[in-house]
């Protein structure tokens, strides 16, 4: 009996001390004006996905109470589906492709809505590659888009150390000599090996959600990525 009383007392003391207070991260408790929407979109040439995370001063937020996100891609409006990523809620839509800019809407039952957030996406492109035989360098070409954002080329495979190049300007072409393809620490390959070469074009933006102050923020990162396979015989 005495032990039970002790346990009840300790439990009460712990409750009073506020142990385990954790922010209740539901959108009902967060003002639209305090929200930070993080939009990530990727079209890899095979399929596309749009992911949105909702952050706030109290952490990542789960949309509750009828609050919802929608995207309008190529004239078609779709609701975003809730999932989990690293233990936090994430809202996603799977698509066949990202043909261009799309719109994001946040609809709230007891707060301000946000409609028509434009997420800029660079135009789709095709990637071609050749060379890497005898002494020929790797020659890459794609459809240039001067306003398509940051361009990054990467080469990876079992026989090379990962290589990454960023272009200041989207020229639509790049040549990588064999000397630039460094073997991995394990040593140079002795047989033909497969390489994966990808070109990605990413547009990132940061803007306010609303014209008020504070007005929330939306950050977007939309990537068009194309990957081809090439064989290299050193």
């Amino acid at each position, binding site marked *: 009996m005495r032990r039970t009383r002790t346990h009840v007392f300790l439990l009460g003391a712990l409750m*009073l*001390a*506020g142990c385990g*207070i*954790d*922010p*209740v991260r539901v959108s009902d*408790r*967060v*003002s639209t*004006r*305090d929200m930070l929407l993080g939009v990530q979109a990727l079209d890899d040439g095979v399929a596309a996905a749009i992911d949105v995370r909702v952050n*706030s*001063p*109290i952490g990542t937020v789960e949309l509750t109470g009828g609050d919802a996100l929608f995207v309008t891609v190529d004239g078609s409006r779709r609701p975003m589906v809730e999932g989990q990523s690293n233990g936090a809620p994430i809202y996603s839509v799977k698509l066949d492709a990202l043909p261009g800019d799309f719109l994001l809407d946040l609809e709230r039952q*007891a*707060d*301000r809505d946000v409609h028509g957030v434009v997420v800029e996406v660079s135009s789709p492109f095709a990637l071609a590659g050749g060379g890497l035989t005898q002494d020929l360098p790797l020659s890459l070409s794609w459809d240039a888009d001067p306003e398509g954002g940051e361009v990054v080329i990467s080469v990876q495979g079992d026989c090379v150390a990962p290589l990454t190049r960023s272009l200041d300007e989207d020229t639509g072409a790049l040549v990588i000599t064999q000397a630039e393809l460094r073997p991995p620490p394990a040593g140079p390959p002795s047989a033909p090996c497969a390489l994966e070469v990808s070109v990605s074009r990413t547009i990132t933006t940061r803007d306010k959600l609303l014209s*008020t102050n*504070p007005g929330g923020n939306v950050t977007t990162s939309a990537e068009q990525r194309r990957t081809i396979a090439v064989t290299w015989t050193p």
Partner: protein
Amino acid sequence: MHEGRRFIGGAAGALALVCILTGTEDARAGDPSHVALWRLEVHGAYLQGDQRLGAGTLAPYNGWGFWGRVGISEFPWKWLGYDVLAQIGMVGTPQSTFDVVTEGAVAFAPARWKGSVDGSIVLGVGGGFGFERPVWLGRGATGYPLVLARLTLLPKKSIRFFASFRFTPITPEDGWGRAYDLEVTGGYKWWYLGLRGRIDDVTQGDPERLYRTYWLGPTAGLVIR
């Protein structure tokens, strides 16, 4: 002529009311149901609730507070008196800070009785001055109105119970706030122990919503008179 009569009638009525409230005799200090109460006390409390972050986000928070308090409730006249309270202390929250409050009220004693349990009821209206509460509102000093009520029960000469309630609406820069303060104590001779709870409500933000803080903690004191 008509105006003059109305003025004289009003003055006579006010004089009659003052006479009724002040009575013809002082409250006797030896009277077990007398309403005067002078006290010194210390009070500690744990707090938990929601504070506002940004434009209108409910953010859970908690903390503690510790105060020394002096309260004087005195009745120079039978039904009419005054109630003064001063407190100084610390509030430990993310905005941890010094806290000081003074409050004063005109007090009325509409009921006092003798019987198997002597007792009295005191009501008061006045105002206060101190830092804004809860502390997350900021650290501006502010004045505010006050209403109070106190029930005192004396089942024996050496045993005293009293419960007091204070309501203080405080208008911050944005929206409006109010605090409900309830204290229940029981004492023997000069000493008393009790429990004091407070609810601080603030309605503000975009969207406008309620930010509520609960306080609860023990109080211990000494009755001087």
